[in-house]
């Protein structure tokens, strides 16, 4: 044995075996039936040195193309301050476990409390949990929370204007969990309040899920939605893009009972899909229906203000099959990422990012539609993402990719969903328009 991750020398091994009273390492598996002992070889390469590993991944990395990103669909290319990766790499954060031992985990517990506070501010909700895996599963957890909150109703409604991958995840969870999941029709790219009313008033509805901005980037008008839900004791659930909430009317202001979404937009790397983190907020009344970890304030034996994991009686390690959810982790490190991001950007920077993204998207939209080769599909207010129709969509898309630009996400046969963030320069935008 001779590997940098394995400290045992042959003498160590011999001394330890002697102490245990066993002849060789094989003897440690004496009770494992011979028939299931693994005696072959794993189908893996030989060990690589660090230099070889670097070379290997450099070569793999070259098979990816780094494109100037105008794609969104829930994942946005925002600017990340250099402070964040630097602080995140501190191994006291990186290599610690869930903060069960509060006496030596105040770092984690403090920043989770800060995270909860900031997310509650951003969403305009009373409280937030310590984070979820990501946005789609957070939405599914909200669906189940609504289902359990209601004693009799078993139906959850979702607007057709939810992103496709969120709908996909909801359908999977609903199928197995026994939730009846029904769509609410969209008209002109937004949720139909009429249709929603009709379905809620028919009864049996435990919750209603909408998205802001919606799958087309449109800012929807939810006036009256919360009342429609609350009249029939259904929970109103709003999924939002976290960074946009610096300016947008909040889920709290719309009267949401639960607010969920992804925090990737808070400067997290796009990272080919993860890790991100989700958030989940509620009114004070529904505090104990939230899944996942929650950190609260308390005091210690020396009378100091300290923080600790709390409301644990909701959780799987205590309630087992009666838990509100099976979730036992939070995305702590990504929550720290977002917390430092919000501390760096602060009250003003968060608004500036949102406004610049908004302006840049509207500028691009104006330039594209002025060519008359692209047309805005829905004439509705949008934030930093919009849907256009273009005859030559595929040719344009391929040309852009050849020029190092990811021009958006293809939708249907002739549409393109385009997102712009504060990271895009005027030159990049003009180049994209020039390709049309």
């Amino acid at each position, binding site marked *: 044995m001779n590997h940098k991750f394995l400290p045992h020398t042959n003498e160590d091994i011999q001394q330890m075996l002697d*102490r245990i009273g066993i002849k060789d390492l094989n003897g440690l598996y004496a009770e494992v039936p011979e028939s299931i002992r693994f005696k072959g070889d794993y189908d893996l390469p030989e060990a690589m040195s660090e230099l070889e590993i670097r070379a290997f991944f450099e070569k*793999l990395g070259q098979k990816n193309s780094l494109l100037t990103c105008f794609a969104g669909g829930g994942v946005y*290319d925002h600017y990340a301050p250099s402070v964040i990766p630097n602080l995140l790499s501190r191994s006291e954060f990186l290599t610690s476990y869930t903060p069960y031992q509060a006496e030596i985990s105040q770092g984690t517990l403090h920043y989770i409390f*800060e995270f909860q506070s900031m997310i509650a*501010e*951003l969403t305009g909700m009373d409280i937030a949990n310590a984070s979820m895996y990501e946005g789609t599963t957070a939405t599914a957890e909200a669906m189940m929370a609504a289902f359990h909150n209601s004693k009799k109703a078993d139906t959850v409604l979702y607007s057709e204007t939810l992103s496709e991958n969120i709908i996909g995840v909801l359908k999977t969870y609903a199928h197995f969990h026994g939730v009846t999941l029904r769509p609410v029709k969209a008209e002109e790219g937004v949720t139909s309040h009429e249709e929603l009313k009709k379905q809620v008033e028919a009864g049996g509805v435990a919750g209603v899920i909408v998205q802001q901005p919606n799958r087309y980037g449109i800012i929807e008008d939810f006036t009256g939605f919360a009342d429609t839900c609350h009249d029939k004791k259904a929970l109103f659930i709003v999924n939002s893009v976290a960074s946009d909430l610096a300016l947008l009317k909040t889920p709290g202001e719309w009267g949401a009972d639960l607010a969920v979404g992804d925090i990737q937009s808070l400067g997290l790397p796009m990272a080919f899909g993860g890790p991100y983190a989700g958030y989940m907020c509620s009114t004070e009344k529904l505090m104990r229906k939230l899944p996942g970890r929650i950190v609260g304030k308390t005091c210690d034996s020396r009378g100091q203000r300290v923080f600790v994991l709390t409301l644990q009686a909701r959780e799987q390690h205590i309630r087992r099959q009666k838990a509100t959810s099976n979730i*036992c*982790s939070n995305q702590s490190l990504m929550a720290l990422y977002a917390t430092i991001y919000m501390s760096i950007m*602060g009250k003003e920077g968060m608004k500036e*990012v949102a406004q610049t993204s908004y302006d840049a998207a509207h500028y691009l939209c104006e330039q594209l539609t002025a060519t008359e080769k692209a047309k805005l599909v829905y004439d509705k207010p949008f934030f930093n993402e919009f849907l256009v129709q273009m005859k030559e969509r595929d040719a344009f898309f391929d040309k852009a990719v050849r020029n190092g630009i990811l021009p958006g996400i293809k939708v249907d046969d002739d549409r393109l969903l385009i997102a712009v963030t504060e990271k895009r320069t005027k030159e990049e935008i003009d180049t994209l328009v020039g390709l049309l």
Partner: protein
Amino acid sequence: MNNKLYGNLIFELSHPGRRAYSLPENRFGHHPLPDACRRAKDAELPECDEMTVVRHYTNHSENNFGVDNGFYPLGSCTMKYNPVINEEISSLKAFTDLHPQQPVETVQGALEVEYNIQRALASITGMADVTLNPYAGAHGELTGLMIITSYHQQRGDTKRTKVIVPDSAHGTNPASAAVCGLEVVEVKSTPEGLVDVNDLRPLLGDDIAGMMMTNPNTLGLFEKDIPEIAKLVHDCGGLLYYDGANLNPLLGAARPGDMGFDVIHLNLHKTFSTPHGGGGPGSGPVGVCEKLIPFLPKPHVIKTKEGFAIEDCRLTEEYSTADNRIGGYLGNFLIILRAYTYILSLGRNHIKEVGPLATLNANYIKECLKDDYELPIDTLCKHEFVFDGLKDKSTGVTTMDVAKRLLDYGYHAPTIYFPLLFHEAMMIEPTESESKDTIDGFIKTMHVIAKEARETPELVKEAPHSTPIGRVDDVLAAKHPILTYRQLIHDMESEE
């Protein structure tokens, strides 16, 4: 140690007018957001300068304890070394700056990583194929149970709504089963700490979807009757699920696929060295046997003649096995990348040394400490074992006290009060990363604490003494929940 000048909460360092960011000038012209779409009041986020933010979080970190700080014998959590090279590779721009919806021809390198680790994990576990999509162990459990349920449903075998879970199982097992809509049936353990095959037999019938097992189990014991259990479960038409929380000791020794498991999940943050990050992100890949491949969630990476490709969902009105998405994209890619780096660092041969060395360390600690600590099941253990508190119960010193006293000596505590089979459970898992010197130091300290418990029990009962804070008031936190800074301010004002 923590410098109090920089405040306990970032909000307390905020001053209107300060900023820690810089952005380019907005050159896009002003486009006003309609008032009806705008929030009425700003979010009360902090306003600080950059150095204040850096010092604040640096000070936070100094109140934490990670694997890089010291020995972390946290049972069931496999707190092994998290190699630094993993971090370097996972921060390469060629991987971090990819949008998940880029055309496949522009992400061939990323897909190759995913495909290769699917194959590597399949080989290590003896399964036919693997999905990397689940975001954590619990998410993997849920995914695995969904696969089992789908398999029965597809065959029209809809009576199978129950899943058997041992009484020693992690709480997540029954919770995942419940989320999947399955009813939990508990099977008892024998006095030797293994699944009681005689108790299992009468539970098996045509209503059983499957059985979940952790092997080695949560007591650190290998379920040696596994061939018989697999046969019994399969004979009744059920499928066998492997909770991979304790896979580490089996690296180089045995594979779940060879034991008869049909579905497994792995915790890349345990066995495959990715950092725990204070509670996440993790990654919980799920492996399946041949007949269950069609039930793997989408999207899924495959290899074709033209290169790597993604099998994606067809969006249908109703749920279908062809449209079974469990998350946004292809899992926690950067975590997967770290695990792949780890596997390549160890390679085919050294990875086989992991299990035996982890097992050696655990048995060595157990043998050295069983004179002072109560060992309820005195047998060969695998990667971890469970003490039932101090042997001498007359001192009144509890497992909690011993755990807290360990913090004073610079060790993380073991997992305590789990499994529920013993009142004073103390679960110790050293992992293969720890040298004999470190382990001898820990053993010595545990003996010192046992001596303190006999001679100066109050010293142990009041521990910890040297940590930044003392024992916390859990009851106050739960009785009077204060979960945000806004609530904290409100509470202080109402007290005045």
